[in-house]
């Protein structure tokens, strides 16, 4: 049974690591700079699509295409960021999620470019199967010792990157740069009077978030091997928020805790085969999962917004 199958849990571990990177990208924007970007999934989508299109249509080697995807996400950050950074918090939230929906609609409706609703499968047109992650699979195969599931390598790579990235951002947070960000979060006028160019700092956080989101999106696309516009719905952004909130949205090292808990929750619902949940068929379990995610969002924001490990006083959520 799946519950004791290590290959399954390795797969979950790999996804958890990718989600941790995604949540870190959100951390850079939301927890460091105070920007409630509700459209984060757009960075992931744009990067994955750019990468796949470059590989499949223009025969660009995967590592270069991956860089191209990151560049595409950063471009999006500039296009969206420059006008909207001065918006009030909830308007920024609405504008960014509207923007991410525009991206998804464009991906859905430009089949010649993006494969339309079929996504990456349809990128080369009907009848031709498009695969973009050949080089990734080859790398994983190369790195994996005989007898070990491939997902172990993926999980290891992903988590090593995640931990290094978190450590780097923790450094950044402790540095004078992080101090300026903290000031900007609380009082932009004070930061300006202290000689700091607030807009430039916010853009830096946004671009950092875009880069991390791009990496997460590309890893996800490579790991799963196929994607479509439906994989990039706003719900994904809210997974990242829940991960941050679970662990503690102002504690960077709580991100691994949050992403592991979230992944356990997400994949664990398939094991709930006892009454009354066994009444729900496995297809409908997906909806139960989403219901629980919504419930957790509400419960944590209501009762414990600082998450499991966070510090309530420094949270500044009452702005």
């Amino acid at each position, binding site marked *: 049974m799946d519950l004791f199958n290590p290959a399954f849990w390795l797969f979950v571990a790999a996804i958890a690591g990718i989600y941790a990177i995604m949540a870190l990208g959100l951390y850079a924007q939301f927890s460091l700079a105070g920007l409630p970007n509700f459209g984060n999934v757009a960075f992931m989508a744009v990067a994955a699509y750019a990468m796949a299109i470059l590989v499949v249509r223009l025969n660009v080697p995967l590592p270069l295409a991956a860089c191209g995807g990151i560049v595409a996400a950063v471009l999006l950050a500039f296009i969206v960021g420059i006008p909207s950074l001065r918006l009030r918090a909830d308007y920024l939230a609405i504008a960014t999620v509207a923007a991410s929906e525009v991206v998804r609609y464009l991906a859905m409706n430009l089949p010649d470019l993006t494969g339309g609703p079929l996504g990456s499968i349809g990128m080369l047109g009907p009848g031709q199967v498009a695969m973009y992650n050949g080089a990734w699979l080859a790398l994983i195969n190369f790195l994996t010792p005989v007898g070990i599931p491939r997902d172990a390598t993926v999980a290891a790579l992903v988590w090593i990157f995640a931990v290094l990235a978190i450590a780097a951002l923790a450094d950044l947070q402790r540095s004078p740069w992080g101090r300026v960000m903290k000031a900007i979060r609380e009082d932009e*006028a004070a930061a300006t*009077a202290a000689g*700091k160019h607030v807009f430039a700092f916010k853009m830096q956080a946004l671009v950092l978030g875009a880069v991390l989101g791009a990496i997460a999106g590309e890893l996800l696309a490579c790991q799963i091997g196929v994607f479509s516009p439906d994989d990039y719905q706003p719900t994904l952004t809210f997974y990242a928020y829940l991960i941050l909130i679970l662990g503690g949205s102002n504690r960077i090292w709580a991100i691994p805790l949050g992403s592991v808990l979230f992944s356990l929750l997400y994949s664990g619902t398939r094991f709930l085969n006892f009454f009354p949940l066994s009444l729900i068929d496995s297809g409908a379990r997906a909806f139960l999962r989403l219901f629980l995610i919504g419930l957790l969002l509400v419960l944590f924001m209501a009762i414990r917004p600082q998450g499991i490990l966070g510090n309530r006083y420094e949270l500044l959520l009452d702005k």
Partner: protein
Amino acid sequence: MMLEVQDLRRSFGGVAAVDGVSFAVAEGTITALIGPNGAGKTTVFNLVSGFLRPHDGRIRFTGRRIDGLRGDAVARAGLVRTFQTPRVLTRVSVLENLMLAAPDQPGERFGMCWIARRRVAQRERDVRQQAAEMLTLLRLEHLAADYAGTLSGGQRKLLELGRALMAAPRMILLDEPMAGIAPVLALQLLDHIRALLTQRGVTVFLIEHDMEMVMGVSDRVIVMDEGRVIAEGTPQAVQRDERVIEAYLGRAA
């Protein structure tokens, strides 16, 4: 002249808040900007410090044009301001509030903390030292590790003053420094302001609503009413000026 303002104009919704204001502030002086409520004093401050864009006019600081510069650029040029209600960062420690304002911190450049570790750490040590000395000067050293949110109103004013000084400015704009402070603390603040001038060579330009407070400390006084400068001179001269008396008495202040 350290600060020269020529024909400054700014309106809001068609109403002129600052209507052709010109004045100059000499280096090494304490100059006060006074006038009844609504005279446009804070608007002048906001225009000079870059927090508002002027609709017309020229502003020169140490000979250089600064009208149109952003607030942070003006601050970096050596003209630092405080706020009427002190804007301290409540969720940050008192010491870090001061450290924020130190200029030339390589660690504030994105990525420098990774590629220039030693340089960043060295500057941090220097900045921390400087901030600790400032706290001692302000007699707040026992509060260094506390959240600034726990400070009283008067202590916050001192902290904001200290933050302004951390940048080693040429000139400070103080927006109603005595407002909302108990008289005893106000005297202490007055001492600090005088000390600023003598010890550090900082020019002071302050807004104050209360004429009495200001007379004892200023070298020159500029009086505004309804968006214009109506008088300028020594405190004694201004106090006797008929137009000034009328401006203050001619409305239910």
